[in-house]
């Protein structure tokens, strides 16, 4: 029996989507003329955080509800900070931030909390 709510599945897919978009933004931040790769590390940090966040919505996730919400806020905050720093195109930054806000709302939802606390291990 699978009891994973739709909102949790949406959380997983939004995490993956955020990671993919951040990946594209990271690649596009590369400047071939100077081979400047420093900014790409910051983009890669956003990619890692969003993929990790998506993974927390899987059945095999091992962290508590609070950590999931904290991670969602951290990923969104880092996305905003990296965009402010200029390491990512502003439009990519806005899209990723919007996805991050959706992730925060999904993570803080009571259905997600109930699933993490009670039903996560039921497959």
């Amino acid at each position, binding site marked *: 029996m699978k009891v994973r709510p739709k909102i949790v599945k949406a959380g997983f897919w939004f995490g993956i989507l955020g990671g993919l978009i951040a990946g594209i933004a990271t690649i596009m931040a590369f400047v071939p003329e100077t081979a400047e790769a420093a900014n790409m590390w910051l983009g890669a940090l956003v990619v890692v955080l969003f993929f990790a966040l998506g993974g927390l919505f899987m059945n095999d996730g091992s962290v508590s509800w609070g950590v999931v919400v904290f991670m969602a806020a*951290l990923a969104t905050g880092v996305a905003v*900070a990296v965009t*402010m720093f200029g390491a990512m195109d502003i439009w990519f930054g806005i899209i990723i931030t919007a996805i991050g806000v959706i992730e925060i709302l999904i993570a*803080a939802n009571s259905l997600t*909390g109930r699933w993490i606390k009670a039903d996560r291990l039921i497959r």
Partner: protein
Amino acid sequence: MISEKKSGGAFAVLSIMAASLFFLLMMIAIADTPGWAFGEDLIGDVSTSDSGVYLRSGMALGGILLAFGSIGMVFNGGRPGKTAEGVLLMISGILLVWVAFFEHDDPINKVALMLFIITFVLAMIASIYDDFKENRSMIYGSLTVLLLVVSIGAYAAYEPAMYQVVWIIEAVIWVIARGINGLCEPTINKRK
């Protein structure tokens, strides 16, 4: 016996008033200062101009209201995180009044401003602890995390004239959010 009464609201309103009044008076001071450029001039330059009285009044009134508003956080029925947040916000409110009353070039002004920033950030961290403890208010906790990370990013990305504007706006948003949080949640009083 545990009784529940919604008495924290009155103090929370003071917090909301503190942030709103400070922001309003700061905007009036900026609008009244000729030649002040957004992102180029410091907010401190406004306080030394003729319109500085608005900014100083905003800081003094905001600080007093913030200090009184945090009383509701201190008496909350035995939540250590909330108590720490209340005490730290009370200290930062008093320090903000000091910043308003001492001249811009006075060393006490600088020390008070530095201590204000430190206590305010510590209050934010204490609020994160309280919000995530027993999953109390996840949305408010995540907002605080978001604002803290963005403020670090702004410090790294911008010049002082720009990042201090970001910090002030974030602080105003946070204090208003804490006020709304205080309005929403009842104060639990444990009585023997």
